[in-house]
């Protein structure tokens, strides 16, 4: 484009104004985790925008599989990468990351995968539902409606295999943990603790307020797809009846 001719200048102005119009996202920080790991940090807060950037880089690298990348772990605001320095140098890895981030809006739209999690609320499946309801001055039905309304974002999976950190719990349902944790919380239990809601993938001790249970088996090491949820998914809880519970049960 010849900037000296009049139409060239006009074209240049349009080009420049387009650049200004598109938001330039700051490149992520690349932090060393020893000699075989790095953490690609996109920010220092828990919010959907930062998490989306983590998810995008994760999806891209997972699809492209650059040689030498051994494992990936998307978390709230950073992507952890395990790599083999004998196959891929740190410098090459930084270059790959730069190629996929920090140059204007991220390529690759976030494909919203919504996963429905059927939940039998209350009764023997949700022993703390009534307590949570009365704590907030709501009816059990209102708690169920507020809990099953939002589309929750899976920010990351950690703590134990298959445990999803969900974002988006309605403020009106923020409930403190139980004073005395239970020795066993059965797998599939859906609970609330402070501002978090989540599902226990395996039997474990826990202090969450249990409001329901899902018949789905979130984690099965022998299944071909061992995990039902992954980071970046969206989860919607749907209330089901007792009969449906048996029908849905994968156990």
């Amino acid at each position, binding site marked *: 484009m010849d900037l000296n001719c009049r139409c060239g200048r006009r074209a240049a102005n349009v080009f420049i104004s387009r650049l200004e119009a598109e938001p330039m996202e700051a490149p992520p920080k690349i932090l060393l985790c020893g*000699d075989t790991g790095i953490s690609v940090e996109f920010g220092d807060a828990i919010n959907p925008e930062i998490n989306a950037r983590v998810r995008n880089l994760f999806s891209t690298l997972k699809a492209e599989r650059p040689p030498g990348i051994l494992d990936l772990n998307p978390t709230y605001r950073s992507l952890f990468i395990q790599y083999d320095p004998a196959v891929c140098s740190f410098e090459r890895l930084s270059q790959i990351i730069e190629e996929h981030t920090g140059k204007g809006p991220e390529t690759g739209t976030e494909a919203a995968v919504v996963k429905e999690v059927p939940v039998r609320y209350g009764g023997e499946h949700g022993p703390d539902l009534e307590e949570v309801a009365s704590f907030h001055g709501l009816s059990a039905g209102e708690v169920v409606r507020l809990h099953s309304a939002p589309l929750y974002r899976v920010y990351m999976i950690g703590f134990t295999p298959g445990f999803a950190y969900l974002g988006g719990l309605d403020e009106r349902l923020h409930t403190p943990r139980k004073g005395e944790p239970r020795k066993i919380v059965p797998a599939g239990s859906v609970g609330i603790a402070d501002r978090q809601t989540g599902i226990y993938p395996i039997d474990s001790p826990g202090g969450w307020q249990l409001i329901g249970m899902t018949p789905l088996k979130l984690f099965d090491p022998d299944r071909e797809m061992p995990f039902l949820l*992954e980071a970046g998914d969206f989860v919607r809880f749907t209330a089901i009846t007792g009969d449906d519970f048996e029908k849905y049960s994968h156990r």
Partner: protein
Amino acid sequence: MRSIRIVEPGPLATVQDRGRYGYRSWGVPLSGAMDLQALRVGNLLVGNSEDAAAIEITLAGFRAEFLCDAHFALTGALGGGRLNGVPIKSWQAHRAGKGDIVSVDNPPPYPAAERGARGYGRAIGERPEDFDPPPLLREDFFPGGAGIRIYLAVSGGIETPPVMGSRSTYLRGGFGGHEGRALRAKDELALGASPGSSKTFPAPAELVPNYSHAPTLRVIPGPQDDRVSEEGKTLFFSRVYEITNRVDRMGLSLSGPVLDLPSGADIISDGTCPGAVQVHGNGQPTILGADSQTTGGYVKIACVISADLPLVGQLMPGDRVRFSKIDLWEARGIYLQNEYRIKTLLR
């Protein structure tokens, strides 16, 4: 079917390989051998691929019977290995026939007087707490030598059904290895077809880590070293830290000079890895192990380089460590040199 049978597992024996890759994003820890150098070299000595599964033995008291002819090697902590009661050298392949017993034994019993002083055979009438089993002391382990883990590599490799691509046992999750648990007496483990070419020479010294009761661990600072005060960092890189009793496959808790964290120990949970050194609210460090959780909400001041992870995997309560700073490029040189040596010296 070629196989080996556990007679006595000792305090903890599990099937481990190089680890479970590809599932970290779902919260699945790496697991695998705490001393990867010992695992890999042991496998190569008996003609296996480095990735084959072996038995990770902890301390002494392990006993297994070969139900077929095989080559085997004991690597990791030195000493204690026996074949049919006869002491054998570590880091070297040996031949076993059907019915032979391989064991990792206690050092010879101490003289009676010393036993009494340590709590054996107490007189009746002493306080109840005196009947508690005495804590494992350093002398209970291999005389003089450092280390708590020994690897039994057998020709053909331990062939338990892979779970999510690996034979490593993840104890907390209850999957992998042999039925997802610690090995017990009478467990029979299948072996793969014999590869047929074990090495006739012992592992070259350059491949054996410098196990020590007081190692210096080389670390790369970060990712959150900026959360530690300058004084804290000076202490961390100069003082001795002692390994406490809290030692297991998830990690090792250390005790020593308090590291000051001006903005606290909490971070937004991010990815962790074995070898990362977390600092908790009490200013004490913890080195993460193979079974550590994949995400963590604590400041990480530094990460132990891969070449020194085998030293971490052999630390016992009472050992004392020092941390020394190293940069990525020097660490990479050390890593590449070891990889090259493994490829060329055990061909």
